[in-house]
């Protein structure tokens, strides 16, 4: 339930975000994984989803490398919907930024707002995905995956081990995709 509310709030804020930081090409605004990142640590789990103490979705990587389902699902969806511009593993391309770093720098609400509404900066355009269920139904998945990439908590490529998909996640997916 929480994520849906957040998406709605983010969408209403997003208009003001459109004039935010420019989307640099082939950019490399580095992330320091050792620095304190308040939107990363897991505070609690709910039906296979993980959240920070501020109720922001986050990833959970077990000691043996097993990733939570949302992170795995985000890997899959990212490489269908996003990688044709943002490159494999969120590493950026010649014309679209390294979104793995953006997921850390922008914060959850800005990130969601830009995906929902898109933004423009000269000839560099992020499309809006607000009416695309293949993206919107997996927005938190993609976000936590990219955050895990930005923190280098998961390596490049396909996560080898994953938690099973919880009933709650499956129900939400079916409801969203129709």
């Amino acid at each position, binding site marked *: 339930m929480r994520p849906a509310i957040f998406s709605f709030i983010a969408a209403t804020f997003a208009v003001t975000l459109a004039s935010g930081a420019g989307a640099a*090409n*082939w950019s490399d605004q580095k992330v320091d994984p050792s620095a304190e990142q308040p939107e990363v640590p897991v505070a609690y789990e709910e039906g296979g989803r993980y959240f920070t103490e501020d109720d922001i979705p986050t990833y959970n990587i077990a000691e043996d490398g097993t990733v939570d389902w949302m992170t795995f699902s985000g*890997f*899959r*969806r*990212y*490489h*269908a*919907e996003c*990688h*044709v*511009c943002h*490159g*494999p*593993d969120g*590493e*950026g*391309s*010649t*014309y679209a930024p*390294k979104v793995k770093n953006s997921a850390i720098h922008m914060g959850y609400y800005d990130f969601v707002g830009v995906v929902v509404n*898109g933004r*423009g900066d*000269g*000839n*560099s*355009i*992020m*499309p809006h*995905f607000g*009416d*695309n*269920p*293949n*993206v919107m139904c997996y927005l938190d998945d993609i976000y936590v995956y990219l955050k895990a990439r930005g923190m280098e908590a998961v*390596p*490049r*490529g*396909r996560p*080898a081990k994953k938690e099973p998909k919880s009933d709650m996640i499956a129900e939400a997916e079916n409801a969203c*995709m*129709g």
Partner: protein
Amino acid sequence: MKKLQLFTSGIALCCASMALANDDLMTQMDDPKQWAIQTGDYENQRYSELDEITAENVGDLQVAWTFSTGVLRGHEGGPLVIGDVMYVHTPFPNTVYALDLSQEGKIIWKYEPKQDPNVIPVMCCDTVNRGVAYADGKIILHQADTTVVALDAETGEVEWEAVNGDPSIGETNTATVLPVKDKVIVGISGGEFGVRGHVTAYDLNSGEQVWRAYSVGPDDEMLVDPEKTTHLGKPVGENSSLNSWEGDQWKIGGGTTWGWFSADMEENLMYYGTGNPSTWNPAQRPGDNRWTMTVMARDIDTGMAKWFYQMTPHDEWDYDGVNENILTDQEIDGEMRKLLTRFDRNGLAYTMDRVSGELLVAEKFDPVVNWTTGVDMDPDSETYGRPQVVAQYSTLQNGEDVNSTGICPAALGTKDQQPASYSPRTQTFYVPTNHVCMDYEPFRVSYTAGQPYVGATLSMYPAPDSHGGMGNFIAWDNIKGEIKWSIPEQFSVWSGALATAGDVVFYGTLEGHLKAVDAETGEQLYQFKTPSGIIGNVMTYESDGKQYIAVLSGVGGWAGIGLAAGLTNPNDGLGAVGGYASLSDYTALGGQLTVFALPD
């Protein structure tokens, strides 16, 4: 004897062309001092008779002059030269420059179309454009937003505009156009957005639409005659496309037409290929999905289909069939044949009879290709002409939500759009290739107009157990179906090749090198590092008695997506991650024309 036959067939071609009135472009293309069409000629040979630069002296090549295009995205295609004027185009916003070659490239005119930037995000894989065309005193530009515009070649003034598609449903353009007779023939992009592909002819003088032929759908909309249009010698029959789809999926079924066009004026036929069926998830579109992934021969005047050949029925890997069809007249078993040779994304090189559509040769042009054991060449077999799919690499048989690993080639194909060249002197094809494999996991997606409609996750990596690089530049014998020689390259070779009568072959690399190699041996004779990675096509022309070689630099396109940060092989485990070369270590964005010549 062979030479004599080639010579006579050359004469036949020249006289047939003269019989056509008003064909300014044919005259311009016959003059080797010019480069009047992106593909070099209607045959798509990318071969020049110019021979001042030879295998002996190419090592002395120097940069003569350069020109910055002012745009920093992927630069595909190349310049044209007509008389003393060079026409240079850019990626979005698709600026066109006319440069005066007698004054070191001084700008005669510049045209910048007004386009809605919202077209940018619906272009899959960068805002490339493969160049302008020339005909009858006009420069024809097919913009990203699908507007076709004819400019006065002398002044840059707009003569007419035509709108070919609708970017709000994902219809865009990256390709050049084919001016032929009194028509301009254009294609469309958007296979990753569920666009239903088509090819359209516009009147060269007015811009009025003359005919449109869809790649999929009902016979009348496809300009197919069920009795006369053939597939491997047999009539296709009624509803040949509709019968190969389930339900209405064909309406968002892909088969886009963003590759190159060739034409045989004697036969009055034009040739092109159609792209992937939508989505990338094969389970969502049962059937052969005709006529996606198909080479098409159509009548130039009416658009009616003469023959089809579907290379990859029911695609499971995104092996778009859009690559160029190169037309040659060569001897097979003592008989002169009118041939069509194509290096398909699926890793097979096909040699066909371009009049009848008969399949003569189908062989792998990279030994790592593993999704198929080859094509059934037995005309009596039920599966005649079909590739035999290896179950292990079938993303359909493995099913939705299953990750099929180790498939070669990757979705970008053993070769993408980067065109090959052919030298009649060596009877050899020179082919820029990718040497990349992939894991591919299809899953269910839903369609929203104007939104990506992909339905698969894939990861790509250099071909395992090979030289570690991601590309090769090969010489190919299209009669034997064999590689003559192969040059390993660190990155995919994403630049169109040029062969010349000086027995030199040129190509560019993603690091930014222009390379010259010996046409016989492949020995490297020259290289120069231009300011950015090369995904453009090398061309040549003569000005004031001197031969020049020119190429656009400006890394991007599909290559700029996959290779910017380097590729990884998830199957290699953690240790190898980051171990492969990253293109961003070698080159940065650019947009520059570099022109080479021998010293005076």
